[in-house]
């Protein structure tokens, strides 16, 4: 019997100025992180609308992580402060609806933190993998 070892699919929204560059650095330094992390580049972490996150889950993501500049370092001065509030509220709501809180995360990763990016992704992927497939925010039409 073959056990279905489906690797978790992770969507990472990365801000253009810090985290995306951080991911780049991780790549340049050949730091490994799971291939199932799909990066979506956004101009600023506050570009991420709650709908994006829900859509990602609908389309098969098992975990969604948002990466932005460290608080205080936003390219647009204050974007990530808004992200922080919004995501705190949204994730708390998802938790309130009984959706596993380990499936969502916000992490601040600067352009210099390639190692942190890789470590974060490894850790997040591991946590999500432990939870298994996303069942609570799934859309059966998008499942095989």
């Amino acid at each position: 019997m073959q056990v279905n070892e489906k690797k978790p699919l992770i969507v990472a929204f990365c801000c253009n100025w810090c985290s995306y560059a951080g991911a780049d650095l991780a790549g340049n330094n050949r730091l490994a992180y799971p291939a199932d992390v799909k990066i979506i580049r956004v101009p600023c972490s506050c570009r991420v609308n709650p709908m994006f996150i829900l859509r990602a889950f609908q389309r098969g993501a098992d975990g969604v992580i948002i990466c932005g500049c460290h608080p205080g370092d936003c390219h647009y001065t204050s974007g990530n402060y808004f992200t922080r509030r919004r995501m705190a509220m949204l994730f708390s709501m998802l938790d309130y609806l009984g959706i596993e809180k380990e499936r969502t995360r916000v992490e601040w990763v600067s352009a210099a933190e390639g190692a942190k990016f890789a470590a974060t992704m490894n850790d997040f992927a591991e946590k999500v993998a432990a939870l298994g497939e996303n069942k609570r925010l799934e859309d059966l039409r998008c499942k095989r």
Partner: protein
Amino acid sequence: MRKCTAANLDKLFAAIAENAALYLPVDDEKGTAQYKKWAEGTVMSNALNTAKSPKDFFFPQSEDLMKFKTQGKTIELTDIRDEKEDFVVFGVRACDVRSFDILDRVFLVDPRDSYYASRREKGVIVSLACSKPTETCFCSAFGIDATNPAGDVTAWKTEEGFFFKANTEKGEKLMASLEGLTEECTEEAVEAQKAKTAAILEKLPLADLDTDKFGGGKTAELFNDPAWAELSRSCLGCGTCTFVCPTCQCYDIKDFNTGREVIRYRCWDSCMYSEFTRMAHGNNRNSQLERFRQRFMHKLVYYPENNEGIFGCVGCGRCLAKCPISMNIVKVMKTVGGKKDE
């Protein structure tokens, strides 16, 4: 006429459920009745009617129609209707039974809607006569006899138990399969209940609702009635009335791209929604007044015009109970066209 004692009722349900999926009104945790599939231990609700109408059984709120797979320039089409098993809907009130007739006249005329038609063929309707109509009931205005509903089998519930009369071939087949659990009986108890209910029906506050102002051919008279403006003024433009209505049948066809394929599905739509008639070059019903008028004109004038005078409303009273602003077809009927009478 056949009778099933109260003690035998569960056995009767079990016997029906053996051959077909059995659905009946069941109270949820808040005491609201909704149709649920019967399983061992299910208790039938005593409520007058379900919050949502049983039109879902034949015209579900959403259903997948077909699937497309595209590759390069080619398209592959697959029919993905779900083949429904035989089913029995138990306890449908007279008003809702009439609603199936109204839907049939839309979906079964050429070209026949085969999705609807196949469900209609597979479903057996066991209706249930009313014994405690409520203040929002006005089915009698549309010539419906709440004490003697249509359906494949008509049922009456008294203290003694359930009484059944088969009306169609399908109904007779169902009753034949239940012969061991029912016994032949006289109609006395049923007649007594009918008389008692009829007396209550006469006392209902909406018993004297007048339909004479409406019907086919009344478009010119009613369309520009000044009353529409006031009636529709507070309308929120939500779809509550249309979605709880047993006869509203407007739908939308939409595509959903799953990433691998496109599913074309059909879902209920509401003429009350602002986008209902929007197209690339504009919207011919731009104001809520126009949309509001469309809904009621459709039920009271357009539908009867195309269907031998049969009104598109069954008087179930759901919209009276559920409208957020308590605007409803009764208020419309009492107001529109009223100026002429004075």
